[in-house]
């Protein structure tokens, strides 16, 4: 896979290996480098419908590699306003660029305060070391 192991500081992380980029009352969601590395090359992305409501800590979709399926766990609650069609068409984009082109969905936050429960990059890296 193309990318090197990074965990950008400006993102917030969920222990199930999902990230959120928060911009005002909206957030962009995806999976971390660790998640895509564990799964291997992604072959399928099953997204939620646009307009769907998703709740923090719950599954909002799935990604699949040849040998594994993984639930996507949302770090934050909200309404889905956009699904990344590029990943639907070419799931391997997530492996190449998990934090940029490989974003999965954008949501409008229903409770921005939820972000306080998330891990910062240092805390997430720490969690990975213990794994």
């Amino acid at each position, binding site marked *: 896979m193309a990318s090197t192991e990074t965990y950008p500081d400006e993102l917030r992380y969920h222990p199930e290996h999902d990230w959120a980029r928060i911009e005002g009352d909206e957030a962009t969601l995806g999976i971390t480098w660790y998640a895509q590395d564990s799964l291997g090359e992604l072959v*399928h992305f099953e997204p939620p419908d646009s307009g769907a409501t998703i709740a923090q800590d719950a599954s909002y979709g799935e990604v699949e*590699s*040849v*040998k594994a399926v993984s639930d996507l766990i949302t770090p934050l609650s909200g309404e889905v306003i956009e699904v990344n069609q590029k990943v639907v068409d070419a799931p391997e984009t997530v492996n190449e660029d998990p934090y940029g082109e490989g974003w999965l969905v954008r949501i409008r936050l229903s409770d921005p305060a939820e972000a306080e429960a998330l891990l910062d990059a240092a805390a997430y890296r720490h969690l990975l070391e213990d794994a």
Partner: protein
Amino acid sequence: MSFLSLTEQDREQMLETIGVDSIDELFEQIPVGVRLGQALELEPALSEPELVVHLTELAARNIDTGREVSFLGAGIYDHYVPAVVDAVLARGEFLTAYTPYQPEMSQGVLQAIFEYQTAICELTGMDVSNASGYDGTTVAADACYLARQATGRSRVVLTEALNPQVRQVVKTYAPGFGLDVVELPHRDGTTDPDELRAAAGEAACVIFQQPNFFGCLEPAPDLAAAANDAGALSVAHVDPVSLGVLEAPGAYGCALAIGEGQSAGNYQSYGGPHYGFLAARSEFIRRMPGRISGETVDSEGKRGFVLTLQTREQHIRREKATSNITTNQTLLALAGFVHLSWLGPQGLRELGETCLALSRYAKERLSDAGLELVFPEKATFKEFAVRVGRPGKEAIRDARAAGIHPGYALGRDYAGLDDALLVAVTEKRTTAEIDSLVEVLAA
């Protein structure tokens, strides 16, 4: 007799390498309280010749189709199995291979499954087939599970003219799937499309059989349309050897096609093992249960085959799998594919035409002899129901005394048909045998 290869010397050397004094030490991890402590109470071992004598004696007490002319059908049929099927199945590689998880070791099996899948798609007019299900009953349960996941609805409609065992098995699986089952009565041997449309309003799927259990031809395109109108998946349960003369379910709008494969390539074998088939339109590919062989390339660009979309299956998706099926019926499905290839499109058509012609001859001769067809107005394929003027069981007893099994006693499954037999006429029957059948039944 045993099938072990170790010598005494081998055992000693091995125990030494392991570092124990006896085999008993290897079992010390079993708590004392749960050890058997005595020999199994089983009959003494038989040598190979003795074993053959014993099994031959048991087999001799069964009246098989070589000893009695058989018009018995009702889901399992006396079709001719060509010699090439036996020859292919005798190859030890096919017989003793496992599920092809390591594709580079199993290209033969994977390609054979791919070819089988293609044949099933061709017969049924569908886009994707799995590598087989257990039999013609459990694939109906599989279809209901798929339909439930696909539509979110929790009812299934089964026609009463669908094989009774298929309905029984669906009803066994239904509570665990969270499904309720509605059965739609037949009208004079077939199903009414308007009644089906009305019943299917909340249904995930509707399953009808073509030809149905009575051998009658259902108005299949209308039934499929009725199910589709009601928003339910239309599922046709079909006879593979009828599909040279009967239209493919995919051509008349069905979502899924399922059935019992035995008629294509399997001996009757007292009910099993056989194979069920399940095929669907392409939109359902990710919901398919069971193994699917897919085409790909190797690292040098050469074509090869692998099990694909394995993330549907239990070994990966576990509690969210599309099915728990693992071991299926590959060898029997392979037999089916060999048979279908032996037939070819011409042969399959001729087989269907022969069944049609012979069964029509039987119907006419029985009618001429004064026996009443149960559904005289309905077109049939290779089976039909006839009233024999007395309890079916009695007619069977008398016919068998003359060396003929005349058919299945329908009274077992349907009210008002205690005096009716379901008579199956395959390409193995001759007009002379049919004449004899008429003679014993009319007597």
